[in-house]
């Protein structure tokens, strides 16, 4: 029998705990495939967040460090400063990065720490049961915005990539989505680029990945992909916000 597809070496054999239809699994695989393709699994240290992907340390087949809530960029700073030749990444959700961890992500970018952040934005707190996040859309129902998020009470959803693009030290900033195959391919390209920039020592890179949460959005996996496309992308436009000039 001919082998036509193999699981990436970048993931362990541990079964994911993610809910059916959640796109964390896809994003994990993209990161893992990139690490494998770049041949850096053996010299990578990943930093896991607090949130749905807290157990990411069991899934990535490289050395892993589990951080406290929001502090992954500070932990990654400590690791990368000791191991400048290694590859270091953080994998963080929107509660972790866009709420409790804003100071850490902004200043890691501001110092242009030479690691890569994968920022998974699903517009909700997943692990704790579907509370409102800074990224929750206006009108979106969550367990702490049961009649839908209201601007006058809680402001407008926070656009992290746009904010990051104002920081000189964030040399690579791109927002991607994983709601269909063409976008998954684009997402992988951006993730690979971000890691390549780290390997070239150019500075801090972040890839924001729009992701689904069927369980806490209360809709089916298929409808979730559609909801992401129709509701999240208009507010969180996809594209590259910053990339280093070639040859620099």
């Amino acid at each position: 029998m001919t082998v036509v597809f193999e699981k990436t070496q970048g993931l362990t054999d541990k079964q994911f705990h993610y809910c059916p239809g959640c796109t964390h699994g896809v994003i994990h695989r993209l990161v893992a495939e990139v690490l494998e393709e770049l041949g850096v699994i053996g010299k990578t240290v990943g930093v896991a967040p607090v949130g749905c992907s807290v157990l990411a340390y069991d899934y990535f087949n490289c050395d892993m460090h589990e951080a406290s809530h929001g502090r992954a960029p500070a932990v990654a700073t400590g690791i990368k400063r000791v191991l400048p030749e290694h590859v270091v990444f953080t994998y963080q959700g929107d509660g972790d990065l866009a709420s409790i961890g804003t100071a850490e992500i902004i200043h890691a970018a501001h110092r242009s720490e030479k690691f890569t952040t994968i920022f998974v934005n699903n517009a909700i707190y997943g692990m704790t049961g579907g509370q409102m996040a800074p990224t929750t859309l206006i009108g979106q129902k969550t367990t702490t915005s049961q009649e839908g998020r209201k601007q006058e009470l809680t402001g407008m959803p926070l656009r992290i990539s746009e904010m990051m693009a104002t920081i000189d030290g964030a040399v690579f900033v791109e927002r991607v989505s994983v709601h269909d195959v063409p976008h998954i391919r684009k997402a992988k390209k951006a993730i690979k680029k971000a890691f390549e920039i780290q390997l070239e020592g150019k500075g801090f890179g972040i890839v924001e990945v729009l992701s689904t949460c069927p369980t806490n959005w209360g809709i089916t996996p298929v409808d979730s992909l559609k909801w992401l496309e129709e509701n999240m992308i208009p507010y969180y436009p996809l594209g590259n916000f910053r990339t280093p000039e070639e040859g620099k």
Partner: protein
Amino acid sequence: MTRILMKGNEAIGAAAIKAGCRYFFGYPITPQNELPEFMSKEMPKVDGVYVQAESEVAAINMVYGAAGTGARVMTSSSSPGIALKQEGITYIAGAELPCVIVNISRGGPGLGGIQPSQADYFQSTRGGGNGDYRLLVYAPASLQEAVDLVIEAFDAADYYRNPVMVIGDGMIGQMMEPVEFREPATKRELPTKDWATTGTNSSRKPNIINSLALDPEELEKHNIKLDKKYKEMEEKEVRYEMYKMEDAEVVMVAYGTTARIAKNAVDALEKEGIKVGLIRPITLWPFPYKAFKEIPATAKALLSVEMSMGQMIDDVKIANEGRLPVEFYGRAGGMIPTPEAIAAKVKDILGGAK
């Protein structure tokens, strides 16, 4: 070996570098500023790294990351800043990583003041972070002792895979004394750091630095394992000094610079024919409970002297086991007790001047 006249904060930094510390993550706060300033200047000279973090919270998490790689790493702060570091400290203790944390403490609560204080006794010995964990806490009374204990702290941290705190009140940070940099008094067989996140090099299973255990049985096992380590510290790491304990009528208990002032009171009272002894804890945790077994039968009372409203006195009471009356004398908020005031308190306890 030559002795060098140095300011406390700088001497502590130099001792850390001497001990092989090459990574320092700091944040400005008075009265410890000369320590990160010194590190920012000196670390590059030894191919080390100094990072000024965006906050104490970030600094301790940088320590957490760096410690995970097996590096010798340190941070320093002062009381309110140490309060902010508590989250990171409990994670580091939970994940069993070595590091050294220096607290040059000041008056509180809240923003408090910037003058010397010992009001962080509870914070250091009872944790400020969540969960069942302990820190080895050294409390030097002189700069030579501070330097010796900082050098020792890195070995102890590596030996136990546990954070070690060195606490000095603001005077330790700010005063100048001659110091020499010596090898640690205790020779320890240090374990290899085969747990460190240095990359698998595709030749071993991934190492994971973690303090999460969702399975309660697994977490309890971890708690028991940690407790075993803390029991070993209680057995092996207790340090204290006894001063003029023979025939003492009152036994004072004081640590850090307060103990030096208390010694002056002991000497002054001795000249007046009043016999007073002193127990000086050098480790605040584990507390030298066993020293209290050596209190002579002549003792009529214990006197805890602190630059606080009374925190260590709780441990003095535990150590005393209800045998003698336990009295207290303290100054707070950055006020420093005088030998005269301490002596007056002793006379008061003994029922007026002899």
